[in-house]
C-alpha cells in the first residue's frame, strides 16, 4: 500500500491542478448511484427481516420502524424452521462434493496436460462440453437412473434427529445425500477439469519427466508434485465450487423427495409455502441462508475471482 502511494505521488501534483475534471465527478456520481441501486434490494431485505411482523401489519412494510428493530424473526426462523438442521444437510453434501470434484478434476487435468496421447484433447472437450449442458437436458434419464440404481444400506450416523445415511437408507440412489453428492461431483468435474487444465498447461512437462526418471509413479507425481504446484488454482476452484454447490436448487429439487434431507436453499422454498403471510420471517430465513456464501466471498475474494477468471482468460 505504502509503495503504491509513493510511486503515484510523483505525477499526481503535476496533473491535479490541470484537470479537476467534471468527467470524473460524473463518473463517480454514476457509480455511486449504481451502488445504491445494487445494495438497496439487499438492504431492504435486511430491514424487513429486522422488523416485527406486528409492526408491519400495523404500519405497512414501507414505514419507519415504530415498533423498533429486533432479531426476533431470526430467532423464530432458526427454531421453527429447523434451520441448523438444513445447514447440516448442505454441509454433508458440499464438503465431500468439493473435495471429490477437485480430486477427480485434477487427475484428469494432470493426465491430459502432462502427457501427450492421442485423445487427450477429446477427453478435455467431453468434460468441458458436459458442464455447459443445461441440467434439464439430462434430468429425465438421470431421474430414471436414480430411481433404478440399487445401493447397499450400511446404517447411518445419527446426531440428534439428524440422520446421515451411510450410502443410503432406501437402497436407491434417489433421495440420498450420496446421490446429490454424485451428480454435483460429476457435473462440476467438467468445469473444474477445464479450469485446472488451463492452469496445469503452464507447468512445464519437464517436471513430470524428471520425477519419472527419479522413479516416482504417475499417481505419486500427481499427488506430491503437481497438486502442491496447483495450490492457488485449487483454492480458487474450492471457493467457487463451494458457492456453486451451496447455491444449487435444481438437483435437490428433483433428486431429493424427503423434506428433511433438503439442503438449505431448497428448504427455503418450502419455508415460503409454510409462512407465506410472514414476509419478515422469510426475509430472515433468506438472509441467514446467504450468510455462508457472503462470508466466503468476503474472506476469500481473491481466490473467488481468480477462480472465475482462470476459466475465461486463459485457454
Amino acid at each position, binding site marked *: 500500500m505504502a509503495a503504491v502511494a509513493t510511486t503515484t505521488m510523483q505525477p499526481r501534483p503535476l496533473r491535479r491542478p490541470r484537470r479537476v475534471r467534471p468527467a470524473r465527478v460524473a463518473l463517480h456520481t454514476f457509480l455511486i448511484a449504481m451502488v445504491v441501486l445494487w445494495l438497496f434490494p439487499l438492504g431492504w431485505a435486511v430491514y424487513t427481516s429486522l422488523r416485527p411482523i406486528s409492526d408491519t401489519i400495523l404500519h405497512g412494510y414501507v414505514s419507519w420502524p415504530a415498533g423498533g428493530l429486533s432479531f426476533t424473526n431470526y430467532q423464530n426462523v432458526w427454531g421453527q424452521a429447523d434451520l441448523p438442521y438444513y445447514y447440516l444437510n448442505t454441509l454433508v453434501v458440499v464438503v465431500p462434493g468439493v473435495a471429490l470434484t477437485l480430486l477427480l478434476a485434477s487427475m484428469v487435468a494432470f493426465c491430459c496436460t502432462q502427457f501427450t496421447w492421442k485423445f487427450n484433447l477429446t477427453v478435455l472437450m467431453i468434460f468441458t462440453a458436459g458442464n455447459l449442458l443445461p441440467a434439464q*437436458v439430462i434430468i429425465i434419464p438421470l431421474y430414471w437412473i436414480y430411481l433404478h440404481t440399487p445401493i447397499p444400506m450400511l446404517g447411518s450416523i445419527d446426531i440428534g434427529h439428524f440422520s446421515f445415511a451411510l450410502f443410503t437408507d432406501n437402497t436407491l440412489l434417489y433421495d440420498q445425500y450420496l446421490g446429490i453428492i454424485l*451428480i454435483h461431483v460429476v457435473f462440476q468435474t467438467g468445469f473444474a477439469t477445464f479450469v485446472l487444465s488451463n492452469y496445469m498447461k503452464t507447468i512445464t512437462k519437464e517436471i513430470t519427466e524428471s520425477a*519419472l*526418471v527419479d522413479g516416482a509413479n*504417475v499417481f505419486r507425481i500427481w499427488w506430491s508434485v503437481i497438486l502442491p504446484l496447483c495450490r492457488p488454482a485449487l483454492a480458487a476452484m474450492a471457493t467457487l465450487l463451494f*458457492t456453486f454447490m451451496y447455491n444449487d*436448487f435444481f438437483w435437490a429439487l428433483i433428486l431429493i423427495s424427503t423434506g428433511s434431507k433438503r439442503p438449505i436453499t431448497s428448504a427455503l422454498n418450502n419455508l415460503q409455502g409454510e409462512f407465506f403471510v410472514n414476509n419478515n420471517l422469510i426475509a430472515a430465513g*433468506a438472509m441467514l441462508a446467504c450468510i455462508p456464501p457472503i462470508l466466503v466471498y468476503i474472506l476469500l475474494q481473491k481466490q473467488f*475471482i481468480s477462480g472465475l477468471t482462470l476459466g475465461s482468460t486463459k485457454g
Partner: protein
Amino acid sequence: MADTTATTAPARATKPGAGAVAISGRRRRRYTLLTRRDKILLVLMVGIPLALDIILIWGPTLASVGLSFTNWDGIGAVEAKNFIGLKNYQFMFSGYTLFWPAFMHNVIWLLWLTFIATPLGILLAVLLDREIRGTRIYQSVFYLPVVLSLVVVGFIWELQYFGTDGFINNALGLVKSGHIIDWLGDSRINLYAILVAASWRHIGYIMILYLAGLKSVDPSLREAARVDGATEVQTFFNVVFPVMAPINVVIVVVTAIESLRAFDIAFIINQGKNGLELLSILITNNSISEASLVGFGSAIAVVLLLISLVPIVTFLTRVMRTTN
C-alpha cells in the same frame, strides 16, 4: 523456471536408477519412461472420471434424444410399440399451447441479457478498469449478488415486487391511490420483472469476467490510440474491443448458456406458470413434477439441447483454436 528444469532433466536421466530406460531423443524418452504400472494408473485416473461423466451426463443426453421418439411413461421397459416417430415433435410444435410461449420467453431472456445486462456489465468493467478511487469497493458491491443463490435472489426481489406489501408499489404511491401493479402476477410484465432480478446477478458476473480480460490488454495499444488523438470511447470500440475478441466470445457463450439454463427464479416465483414458462421448466413439469409424459418431455429437452449446442460448439472451437 522452464529453463532450469529443462537443463536438470537430462542430468537426472543419467542417474543409475534410471539406467534401465532407453534414452534416445526427448520424444522417445517420455514414452519409454512410463512403466506398465504407470500406464494402468493413467488409464484409471482418466477412465474413472470419464466413465462417470459418460454414464451420468452424456448417456442421459443421448437417452433423451432416443426417448423423444417414444410415448413412454417411465414405467417398465421401453418396448417397440412405444416408438411413435415424430409425433411428440408434431404435437409440441402445433398442438401444445405452452411450447411457443416458453420458447419465446427463453428468446426474450437471451435478448435481454445480451442487449441490456451484458453491455451494462461491460460498461461497468470499462469504467472500473482504471485508476479511480474506490474501484475495489465498487467492484465488490457489483459482484456481491453473484455469490447469492438464485433462490435467495428471488426472495429478495419479491420483497420489492409484492402487490400491497412490496417496496416499489408503495414508493410509487400506487398502493395509496389503489392502482397496484401486480409485478409478479401480470403475465405481460412478470417476465421482465424477474429479468431485472436475474440481471442484478448477471451484470456483476460479466463485469468480473470482462475486467480480467481488460487487464490483459497491452497498455501500449491504448497509449498509441491516445497519442493519435482518439477519445476514450473511440479507443474502446476501435482498439480495445477488437483485441478482446477471445473474451467477447466467452461472454457471449456465458450469456447464452445462462439464458438457456434459466429455471430457479421463475420456479421460485410461481413454479414457472402464467407468463413465466421456460423450456427448462416445461421439461420437468411434463416428465417429473406434474405428469409422467417422459417421451414428450424428452422432445422438449432435445429442443433445448439443440439450441445449447450452438454456444457449446462455439466455445469448443475457440478452445480448440487457442490450444492448437
